[in-house]
């Protein structure tokens, strides 16, 4: 173990890799600060550039970009009340009131410190928890793994879709698309329509860029956007207005640690994600505060809590990815794409086959958290300029990057056509309230699910009862069924509650409201 760690350190701790992690944080903070761009889009656009780089350098940069973008989102949330990323919405609740009080610097710095503490906590958890989970997962056979993926897919089906049925349809469509190309076991052509370009299947990166980036531009065009115009910040004479005092940091530490635990928990569970984590972190801070009435009016702990929670999602989100090969969230799915492009197949074997690379990555992740303390600071001053870039200038550049990004990885023009096709498909999926995120995760997990399912059936001689007679497989199957039942009941309850609220706010015949 010590030898592995020392080899990992010698591979990872190089100036070049430090530069990669730092570059990722810089780009992520910058891109995440722009409303309309998010971390996932930024990672998707950056993957093609990393194709020829070493896996450590590339993945450290991409994960750094993910972390940077989560913090970057808070810059526009605090300065403009326009969250750069969805997970920063909770930060705006108290961040923007602080800006209006002339304490923007304090809010931005507290967001940064909380983000760093959350990220360090989460990355340490990743480093400690991954080896035993991966060792446990190595004991799983094809039947257990097939049912584990089924469970993950059912949970992930809830990501981004309007209803559970639509989420399940999106997931199934993703698996269906994954069957295009050569059969993974018999190499029989499937849905290739005689095209050699489709033999290798649908290009992951081209699909990813189309579904996540181009479709997002089309959707934002349809919804109509309002460019953020930086207001002149209120200046305060108080010297403490632009810094976090020791007393404030000390007073927020409990909140930050609780939010870090919550965020890590949300990150490690498939399908929960950083938006839920941020709001859960904010909610626990408000409920446990001695002054809950100050929340929403510029409470510094209201900035610290969501930022610690949403940054803690990143590291912990890699736990199911590196140990089980299951991406818990969309950003993790995109990172999984990067792993695969660099020849690292996520899953329990990853820690056996590439221990130096994985431990090296863990080390770089923890180091990159400390870079976060330094790199985004100048961006706070640049913040007002960065977030005001009009989207009419931004979108043509993004679309050109989509085309060249799709082409760049394999130098294949067919991939560009695939990207445009999925850009349009992603637009319609969103219009029909289906989930491109669930489709994409299912597309990534589809081939693995198929191989394990068929291997298990081969072992049992075609008898599907193998999935209920093996205790762990049966457990995962029961969890999958339980997740569907639970989500259905929860949705029904939420709809009834929403209908109740609408009814109670409608005026009666006498013109009075029903209480």
């Amino acid at each position: 173990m010590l030898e592995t760690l020392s080899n990992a350190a010698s591979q990872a701790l190089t100036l070049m890799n430090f530069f990669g992690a730092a570059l990722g944080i810089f780009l992520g903070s910058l891109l995440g600060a722009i409303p309309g761009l998010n971390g996932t889009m930024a990672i998707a656009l950056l993957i093609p550039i990393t194709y020829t780089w070493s896996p450590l350098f590339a993945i450290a940069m991409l994960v750094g970009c993910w972390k940077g973008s989560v913090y970057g989102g808070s810059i526009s949330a605090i300065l403009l009340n326009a969250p750069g990323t969805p997970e920063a919405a909770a930060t705006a609740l108290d961040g923007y009131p602080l800006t209006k009080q002339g304490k923007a610097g304090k809010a931005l710095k507290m967001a940064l410190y909380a983000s760093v503490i959350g990220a360090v906590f989460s990355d340490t958890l990743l480093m400690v928890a991954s080896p035993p989970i991966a060792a446990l997962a190595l004991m799983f056979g094809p039947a257990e793994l097939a049912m584990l993926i089924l469970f993950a897919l059912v949970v992930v089906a809830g990501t981004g879709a309007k209803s559970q049925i639509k989420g399940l349809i999106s997931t199934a469509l993703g698996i269906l698309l994954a069957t295009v190309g050569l059969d993974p076991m018999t190499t029989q052509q499937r849905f290739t329509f005689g095209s050699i370009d489709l033999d290798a299947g649908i290009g992951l990166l081209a699909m990813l860029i189309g579904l996540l980036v181009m479709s997002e531009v089309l959707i934002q065009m349809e919804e109509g956007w309002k460019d953020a115009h930086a207001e002149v910040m209120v200046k305060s004479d108080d010297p403490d207005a632009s810094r976090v005092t020791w007393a404030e940091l000390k007073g927020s530490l409990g909140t930050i640690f609780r939010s870090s635990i919550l965020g890590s928990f949300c990150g490690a569970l498939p399908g929960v994600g950083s938006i839920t984590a941020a709001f859960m972190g904010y909610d626990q801070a408000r409920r446990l505060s001695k002054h809950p009435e100050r929340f929403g009016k510029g409470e510094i702990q209201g900035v610290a809590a969501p930022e610690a929670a949403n940054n803690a999602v990143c590291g912990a989100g890699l736990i199911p990815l590196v140990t089980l090969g299951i991406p818990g969230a969309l950003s993790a799915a995109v990172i999984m794409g990067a792993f695969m492009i660099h020849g690292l197949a996520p899953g329990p074997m990853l820690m056996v086959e590439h221990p130096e690379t994985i431990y090296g990555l863990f080390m770089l992740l923890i180091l990159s958290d400390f870079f976060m303390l330094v790199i985004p600071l100048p961006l706070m001053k640049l913040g007002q300029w960065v977030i005001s870039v009009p989207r009419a200038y931004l979108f043509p550049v993004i679309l050109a990057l989509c085309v060249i990004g799709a082409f760049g990885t394999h130098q294949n023009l067919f991939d560009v056509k695939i990207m445009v096709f999925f850009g349009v498909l992603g637009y319609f999926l969103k219009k029909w309230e289906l989930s491109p995120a669930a489709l994409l995760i299912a597309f990534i997990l589809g081939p693995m699910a198929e191989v394990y399912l068929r291997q298990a059936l081969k072992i049992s001689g075609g008898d599907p009862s193998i999935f209920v007679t093996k205790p762990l497989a049966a457990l995962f199957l029961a969890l999958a069924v339980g997740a569907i039942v639970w989500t259905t009941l929860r949705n029904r309850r939420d709809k009834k509650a929403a209908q109740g609220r609408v009814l109670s706010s409608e005026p009666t015949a006498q013109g009075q409201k029903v209480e």
Partner: protein
Amino acid sequence: MIQNRKDFKLGVGLAGFCIFLLVYLIPKQVGPLTEADALMPSLVTGFILVFSLLLAVQAIRRPGEKEHHDQSHSGGQGSRWYTIALVVVIMAAYAWLLDITGFVLTSLGAMVALFLVFGVKRWLPIAAISLGTLGGLYLCFDMLLGAPLPVGTLVENLLD
């Protein structure tokens, strides 16, 4: 009376697509449904068929949230769809012409067209951003990463 027409159409459309897959496309493109190769496609298509029918049945009974929004359409919706269609056409042309006119000419043309569609009318920012982006991409892919960008058959012939 159908309560949620959008979901009903989606459910019926998807169900029809699934039947087409099961009856025609999977047997033709993969093999008989009983073969191992066809197991996953037919299993997943079966699931989609069931969920689509459920969605259609649900749409008959439950009104969708979107139905309420549809009643208050904003006036600019038509022009937005027109702009979206234009962007899609430009992107499709961009993808198809890369092979013929190459990276530089196609990207320049596409970017200028996109800027105009997005309502940017000043030529200086259009030229500066387009040339800056193309220069940056060329430097990054062609020179730094050693991933040559397409020259285009037309440009190649002209250069020869």
